């Protein structure tokens, strides 16, 4: 989650801001249905930084007490049995507040009780990790040994596979990869484990070129980690992060920030039972730099929602160190501004992809923003490369240069209607996965 500075004044949020808190679209829609006056009683708000405290009682299946504390550390409370935080009742309460329908200010007893309990809990929490975490050098050394051992094992495994021939990996299913990935997780090399999972996908895809490339890339990582001390610092940081060594927020925030007007190009969520992730894609209007804010949420938690797609935010970003810096944290942030990020031609976008790979060969997606491309579906099958299925959908420039599209492309085709538009997508081997498009004055989330 990112830290953002919010001016200490009580301005009700907008409905978009409120709905961005929703853990999923289901509760978002449910909340919209609960905003009716007849359901609510006893509601009010108290001013405070960030938005203060908002409360109300709702008549659902039973009477529920709903409290949203929007100060520095937001807390949402509702007496309903839902395990989502915030639940639909909290969202509905905030929607009413956003619409100016929460007028009371007298704090009822139950709100007071709750805030007292909350204060006690916060105090206890603060007291807990008060003593600075001491880093035991022995622990660090032990960890480094384990990772090194894990990576050495990975290297041996790769060499063994190539000695025996990797043709049988294509029919072995996921099992050998899962075992190896689990060993790497044990060795605290989570990043490498993730790459092994990617290797598994390549193996079952039936594309031997992709499999061989991914094998080579894993070997490159193992070899790189073996001599990480000899590598130039940025490359060493990239290798370390791909292996899965953690970087603390403090270290990232200590790097010199990049100030710019950052355009929010799109938001992509990957929902998972255990851990959901959200990628917010940004591009600096002045620097032209691409950035990604990554946030995670466990089951029932809300994903960070500090950015609204289509807006441009004045902010300072600190990038995670690496040879191709992309992931960033927000170090400081002012309001939204009017500006427009630069967009590329297809050739320019492919150049940026090549440059990005030069710094981080393990990249599998790279954000690109294309100007004036026509989304199109070719009706006749293209004569494709050997072993690749012909791609029928493309983004094509006026001159006829084109990038293939992957994933669901029909909404983009429908949105553009054959006209040129600006498209943001994640480019990777196989083509571009569209994330958003700008049609006239409307930004379309794809």
């Amino acid at each position, binding site marked *: 989650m990112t830290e953002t500075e919010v001016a200490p004044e009580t301005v009700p949020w907008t409905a978009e801001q409120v709905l961005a808190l929703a853990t999923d679209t289901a509760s978002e829609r449910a909340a919209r249905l609960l905003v009716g006056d007849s359901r609510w009683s006893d509601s009010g708000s108290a001013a405070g930084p960030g938005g203060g405290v908002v409360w109300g009682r709702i008549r659902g299946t039973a009477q529920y007490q709903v409290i949203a504390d929007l100060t520095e550390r937001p807390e949402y409370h509702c007496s309903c049995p839902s395990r989502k935080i915030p639940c639909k009742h909290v969202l509905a309460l905030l929607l009413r507040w956003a619409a100016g329908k929460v007028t009371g200010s007298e704090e009822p007893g139950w709100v007071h009780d709750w805030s007292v309990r909350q204060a006690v809990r916060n105090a206890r929490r603060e007291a807990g990790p008060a003593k600075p975490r001491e880093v035991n050098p022995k622990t660090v050394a032990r960890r480094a040994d384990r990772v090194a051992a894990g990576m050495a094992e990975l290297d041996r495994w790769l060499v063994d596979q190539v*000695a025996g021939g990797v043709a049988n990996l294509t029919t072995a299913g996921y099992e050998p990869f899962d075992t190896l990935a689990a060993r790497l997780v044990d060795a605290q090399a989570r990043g490498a484990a993730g790459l092994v999972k990617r290797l598994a996908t390549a193996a079952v895809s039936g594309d031997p070129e992709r499999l061989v*490339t991914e*094998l*080579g890339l894993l070997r490159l990582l193992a070899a790189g980690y073996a001599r990480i001390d000899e590598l130039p610092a940025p490359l060493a940081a990239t290798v370390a992060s791909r292996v899965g060594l953690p970087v603390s927020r403090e270290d990232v925030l200590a790097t010199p920030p990049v100030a710019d007007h950052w355009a929010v190009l799109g938001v992509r969520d990957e929902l998972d039972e255990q851990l959901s992730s959200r990628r917010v894609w940004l591009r600096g209007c002045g620097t032209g730099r691409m950035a990604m804010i990554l946030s995670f949420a466990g089951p029932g938690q809300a994903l960070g929602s500090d950015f609204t797609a289509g807006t441009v935010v004045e902010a300072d970003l600190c990038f995670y160190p690496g040879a191709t810096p992309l992931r960033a944290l927000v170090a400081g942030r002012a309001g939204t501004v009017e500006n427009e990020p630069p967009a590329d031609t297809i050739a320019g976008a492919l150049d940026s992809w090549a440059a990005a790979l030069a710094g981080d060969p393990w990249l599998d997606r790279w954000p690109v923003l294309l100007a004036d491309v026509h989304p199109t579906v070719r009706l006749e099958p293209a004569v494709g490369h050997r072993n690749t299925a012909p791609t029928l959908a493309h983004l094509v420039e006026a001159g006829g*240069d084109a990038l293939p599209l992957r994933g669901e492309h029909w909404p983009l085709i*429908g*949105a553009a209607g054959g006209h040129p538009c600006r498209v943001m997508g994640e480019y990777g081997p196989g083509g571009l996965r569209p994330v958003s498009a700008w049609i006239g004055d409307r930004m379309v989330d794809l």
Partner: protein
Amino acid sequence: MSTWPEIVAATLVGTDRRPAEGGAATLLDLAAEHGLRRRAGVDAAHGVTLPETAPDDAARPATRAATTRLAGLLDPFTSIDGRGAETRLELVDEWLEHGRLAAGDLLPALLDLGRRHRRLRPALLAAGGERARWLAAQRADWRYLLGEADERELTEPWDLAPIGRRIGHLTALRRRDPKAGRELLMSTWNSENADDRAALLGTLDIGLATDDEELLEPALDDRRREVRGMALDLLARLPDSRYGTRMAERGRACLRPQLRRVDVRPPNQCDAAMQRDGVAARAPAGTGQRAWWLEEVLARTPLAIWGSPDELLAKQIPEEWAGVVRRGLGRAAALQCAGDWAAALVDRLWPEATAAQRPDDRLLLEALYEALPAGQRAERAAQVLRDDPGRATAAGVERLLELCPRPWPPPLADAALGAIAALIRGGASTWRLAGLVTLAGTRMPLTVADRPTAVAVELMRAAFAEDRPTDPRLGTIDQLLDVLRFRHDMNEELEQ
């Protein structure tokens, strides 16, 4: 080893079997180097032709808020409280009916929905505009939009085309020129396989005329039961056909209207000729053999021979046969889509059906509702709901309500609100309420007698909640309120 194909081949085979210089480790390094070079050096595709642009639309595009709402309705991953797939479909239909242009990115989902649900198509055609037609032309399974009758000529000979396209083509032809359609079908009839025969014969439904018996009469001797059944149903709608004449003769032998009463003489036997004409020989369990034959004969006898419905039904029918005669005539009315007969019979069958609660009666009533003239459905539904809301569900009033135009005309809306109130007060179980409430949610007009429907429902709720604050039926009313509010907001967004 220096080319990419060599590296890939060597890696696949393995260095044990085909030793490589430097061994497996060097081979992997080469794989990384070459693989990465290929990945990074990927070139754009060249010479891709630009798409044809979609024509501009004249209609007004929907507002941003309305667009967001439609996107929510279309998102298969959102579950909306108390909203089944059916309600969602109704809401989408209502959105589209406003005629505001749907955003282009939502059209693919709408086209998919329209493919599965024919009733969305008229509204989709308007709300989708030129953009939807432009899209539909690019994907085979969306082409339905380009005219329900796809007038495109078949590219292959008639008898070799896939069955779906043949039906489409034949349907279009029947609409334009029924005779030509029949002749086309007859030209290959004897060489069609049984499945295709049944499917193709169904197209005669469009533009059905007495001349079609040329094909239908021989189809009565078809080997396949489905084909025979289809032919029988179609023939029963042709009173002037040879089939109609035969059945009229049988009907007159069974039912002999006198001055004040009707003589009933059920058939004594069911011979091969009768069976060929669709009279089922074996009675279902619990029904007398002769009574069954009587019902079967009447169900297939052209109603025109009895004069007007009231004329026949006013006469006295012997008690023991009265029920059978009404059922037979009822089935005939449904089969022949005779609105006047359906109206006359619904009134007479309703008390029996609701008293006995036999599923057959309920099905028959539902079939009669479908045969009612459109204008009468709402009126009758209102009447049923007013008369006896408790029994209305037993008489299949949900089916009747489904057939009523949306939004419901004021008298029906009034009656429905009254019925819901009465059912709740009367302690009806929530499942009995559910059907009515679900339909009311999506089909009720948003205002009744100058008052928002939601307000009327609120008042009803408040009055009831005062007496029974914890009653589970309150949840059912809340569902209704939720849907009404949702629609209210949606309509406001669409009108901006």
